[in-house]
């Protein structure tokens, strides 16, 4: 009997695409509830000091105002327990309303609740706050001597680390010290299309339902329950769609606690949606980094020593370190490596992960430095990288689970035409007189798996629902998981409904680290496999079973039917099977966690990116005109989704390289470009028409999800350096500070 061909690995359009383009998909702020009231945040307009008085009298008299929430009348929030507040846990440990201190511009001091959003907003503008200003810390370099040495990133990765003896090489082999340069990246903000949004509704039994745009429903549930001192089951978090997060929306941010508190004191459901300017102070950002890279190499370009030191900042109320050195430890073979991070607490909002945290900013520095080394040694930049190819993860002394980076280099170079590159900077002009430059960089990103669970339910109409408390951030979770269900249970994709984003579903990890597919798919497969087993049991076990007498091994599950491979007349649909056996539905649970190989092997994805830029010689405008990226990310489950992920990731890289940057005013700590007119992200014409993305599509033998390692963030890794290197090749100017705007080149 013909098996249904697998839908895994085939191009599939998004199963939720129509819902999204027709506006039927409901995002956090779209849900309808009765008696809805609206909240608008009251925020600090200084960056450091103490609140002396909040005068809300005028706001209270404003039309439509229901209540004004401040520290005075806020429900007492409980400090978060250690597991939710220690360094490395994903969240601001200081809860709102804890004290009268102000630590950054835009800090939440309360909210006005009114009948309409406009009324809330107007009344919030009428609140007058008196402060006692405090010492202002805004200058990263000026306060560098007060930096601390943070120990761990995310509680997992050492931030001060070394192998071999870099200092000895540096001190005793001056002839090989070749690069010692400082690179910097500015503060950046995620700016997803959908802002942070929360809709909080309490019922009479002290149960809270919170629709909130979050990539961690389970984590948010813990934070909210803990803050309000409620049993965990009293809090339900719902989030079926996220309009992008890029690393934000994962922490325990204050605004949804404010929304829940507002709903409590107003005794009504309350909606709180962040404005675009609030997206710059209320939901994290990438901190500024100033990184020094030292490279020593022999005359053949073999690295002898590598040091990477990062100075960055966190807020006054949380320790989060942009971990720029993470990849430096293992990208290249090198006997002596030293990684340091220094952190200064400043009066800026709390930073958090953003688009390959550490990797994106860190590889900009490292891969720029490698390009500088290639120039010094008169070596082709690609050749330099091949000479320093890491055959294993030298830091943890582990073998790679699967690494085919050489093939990425080769295929990328061939597709791009790299071999015809004239190494001399400024040697090529296009017919319009623009300087043409080619640059490349390596991309690496860790592959992780987290524990996850799922439930599969077959209904008597033959349709299948599978549930897991995971997330859809626009990356294609609904589609990919539907493919896995269809594949495991042998049903067409349109018989499957995947449901996610609800704490009532089996647990799944926070969506981050590009691990969603690698974590959730194995759980989905396990649940579906368990359901499959139950179906077979129903079919064959016992004398009255419809396929009684058939051996389990001879049963085929395909096309929504259970059949005997031996006797094709013995076949019935899932719904008939349920009907004949007197079942309405059939359910099965499944879960998955990383296997043993997880400890023994190093799991990473790899890529090589090549770009062409054109630079106006007088005006300094840089355009990326061609990109080729070849990636080894394990098995490709859906080429359409995979390509979109890389397109987006590389486009973020273009933004990071050429235009993104949030700029603080040093005198006040307030951001000067907290809007999308002046915080530039790439527009269509910034993205090259010639976008060559290829995948090796080699399954990782040790990854549970059919060899898929998951992908997303790797797109932004490498791209900024490749662009900066191309700018150098075009102009002979090495720009070490991002973004590369025209003013840096004229």
């Amino acid at each position, binding site marked *: 009997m013909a098996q249904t061909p697998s839908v895994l690995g085939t191009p599939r359009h998004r199963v939720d695409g129509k819902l999204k383009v027709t506006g039927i998909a409901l995002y956090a702020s779209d849900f309808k509830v009765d008696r809805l009231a609206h909240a608008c945040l009251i925020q600090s307009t200084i960056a450091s000091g103490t609140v002396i008085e909040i005068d809300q009298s005028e706001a209270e008299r404003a039309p439509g105002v229901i209540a004004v929430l401040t520290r005075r009348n806020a429900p007492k929030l409980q400090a978060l327990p250690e597991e939710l507040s220690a360094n490395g846990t994903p969240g601001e440990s200081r809860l709102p309303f804890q004290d009268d201190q102000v630590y950054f511009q835009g800090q939440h001091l309360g909210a006005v609740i009114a009948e309409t959003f406009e009324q809330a907003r107007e009344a919030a503008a009428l609140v007058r706050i008196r402060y006692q200003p405090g010492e202002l810390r805004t200058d990263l370099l000026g306060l560098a001597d007060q930096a601390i040495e943070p120990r761990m990133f995310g509680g997992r990765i050492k931030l001060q680390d070394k192998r071999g003896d870099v200092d000895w090489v540096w001190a005793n082999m001056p002839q090989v010290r070749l690069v010692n340069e400082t690179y910097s990246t500015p503060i950046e903000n995620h700016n997803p299309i959908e802002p942070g949004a929360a809709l909080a509704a309490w019922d009479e039994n002290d149960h809270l339902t919170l629709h909130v745009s979050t990539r961690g429903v389970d984590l948010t549930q813990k934070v909210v329950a803990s803050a309000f001192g409620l049993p965990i089951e009293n809090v339900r978090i719902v989030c079926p769609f996220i309009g992008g997060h890029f690393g934000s929306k994962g922490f325990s941010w204050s605004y949804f606690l404010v929304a829940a508190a507002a709903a409590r004191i107003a005794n009504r459901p309350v909606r709180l949606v962040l404005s675009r300017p609030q997206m710059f102070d209320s939901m994290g950002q990438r901190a500024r980094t100033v990184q020094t890279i030292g490279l020593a190499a022999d005359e053949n370009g073999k690295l002898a020593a590598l040091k990477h030191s990062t100075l960055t900042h966190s807020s006054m109320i949380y320790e989060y370190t942009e971990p720029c050195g993470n990849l430096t430890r293992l990208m290249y073979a090198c006997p002596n490596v030293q990684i340091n991070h220094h952190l200064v607490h400043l009066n800026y909002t709390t930073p958090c992960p953003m688009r390959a945290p550490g990797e994106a900013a860190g590889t900009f520095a490292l891969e720029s430095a490698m390009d500088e080394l290639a120039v010094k040694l008169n070596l082709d930049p690609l050749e330099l990288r091949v000479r320093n190819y890491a055959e294993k993860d030298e830091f943890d002394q582990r073998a790679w689970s699967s690494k085919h980076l050489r093939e990425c280099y080769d295929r990328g170079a061939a597709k791009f035409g790299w071999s015809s590159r004239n190494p001399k900077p400024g040697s090529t002009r296009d017919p319009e007189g623009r300087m043409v430059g080619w640059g490349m960089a390596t991309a690496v990103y860790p592959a992780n798996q987290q524990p996850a669970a799922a439930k599969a339910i077959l209904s008597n109409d033959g349709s299948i629902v599978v549930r897991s408390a995971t997330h859809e951030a626009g990356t294609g979770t609904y589609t990919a998981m539907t493919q896995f269900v269809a594949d495991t249970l042998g049903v067409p994709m349109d018989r499957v409904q995947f449901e996610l984003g609800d704490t009532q579903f089996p647990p799944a990890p926070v969506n981050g680290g590009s691990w969603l597919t690698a974590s959730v798919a194995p759980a989905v497969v396990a649940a579906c496999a368990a359901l499959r087993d139950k179906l077979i049991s129903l079919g064959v076990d016992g004398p009255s079973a419809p396929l009684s007498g058939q051996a389990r091994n001879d049963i085929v599950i395909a096309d929504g039917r259970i059949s005997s491979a031996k006797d094709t007349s013995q076949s019935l649909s899932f719904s008939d099977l349920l009907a004949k056996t007197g079942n309405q539905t059939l359910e099965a649970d499944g879960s998955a966690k990383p296997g043993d190989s997880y400890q023994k092997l190093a799991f990473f994805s790899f890529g090589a990116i090549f770009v062409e830029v054109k630079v106006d010689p007088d005006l*300094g405008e840089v355009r990326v005109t061609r990109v080729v990226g070849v990636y080894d990310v394990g098995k490709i489950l859906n080429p359409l989704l995979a390509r979109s992920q890389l397109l987006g990731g590389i486009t973020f890289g273009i933004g990071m390289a050429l235009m993104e940057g949030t700029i603080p005013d*040093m005198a006040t700590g307030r951001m000067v470009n907290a809007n999308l007119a002046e915080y530039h992200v790439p527009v269509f014409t910034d993205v090259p028409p010639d976008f060559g993305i290829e995948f090796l599509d080699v399954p990782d033998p040790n990854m549970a999800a059919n060899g898929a390692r998951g992908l997303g963030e790797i797109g932004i890794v490498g791209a900024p350096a490749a662009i900066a290197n191309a700018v150098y090749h075009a102009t002979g100017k090495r720009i070490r500070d991002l973004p590369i705007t025209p003013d840096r080149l004229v």
Partner: protein
Amino acid sequence: MNNFAYVRPNDIDSALNLIRTRPKARFLAGGTNLLDLWKMGVEQPQTLIDISRLGLADIAPRPDGTGLRIGALARNSDVAEHSLVLSQYPVLSRALLAGASPQLRNAATVGGNLMQRTRCPYFYDPAFPSCNKRKPGSGCGALNGYNRIHAILGQSDQCIATNPSDMCVALAVLDAQVRVIGPGGERVIPIGEFHRLPGDHPELDSTLQPNELITAVDLPPMADTKHAVYLKVRDRSLYAFALVSVAAALAIENGSITSARIALGGVAHKPWREPEAEALIQGVSPDHAPFDRVADRLLQGAHAYRYNQYKLNLARKSVIRALSVAVASV
């Protein structure tokens, strides 16, 4: 946003009456600048006078049949695509199309564009304590702050803001005339006198009086349309304000430049023209014209601050480039 009254008069007299008698009244055209400023709390009108029904959106030759009269309510996109603008005043079309986004241009009007306010962040966000333009006497936050987009010409120690408009730079080289009507009747303001330098009154962007309405912009005929260029340097390829821009309109006859008009945008509180600079290439062969000297004369007296040093060089190179492109275009 505060509560406000909304009125939509059907004729100019009613509009003028309303703006004179209603407290804190503002004309609403496309709303693309006014509403942004309102939401930020920079503007707080109590009466919004929607002027879209005043019949001011026509684009046609002036009553004497020459040149062009563009109604104050004509949309930026309609102006940019109008056949007479494309054929007679291509620099205006290019400048408009270099600005904002299609959606914004579909809403924005000529009058609103003339009146759009600076993008200085200290002006735009009332949470910044110092801005003489927003709160006279409060100081200038940009002077020692983040002044990357700020002026290098014609500024005062009270204010170093720039006029952000692309359209106005083109209007400057076209010698446009702004037609306005107020309680005292109609008057015509040459574009060079419409916007002012900040001096001691940075709160005033223009010479338009509080109760006056812009009705149209008149353009005199152009002899030569071939050698017209709009050059805009910006931080991304589209949809960004100019760091520096140049509008240039040359007339070339019998191998010599018979007239040269050059305006710089992004460098001052108004589009920047300098007759002495233009004179340097009048009567000169385009092949030997000293564009660098034109640039130097235009930028004479320029002064930059911590973050806008680059503008000195960028403006100079932009002028030279624009003029080179202008003579080369046929």
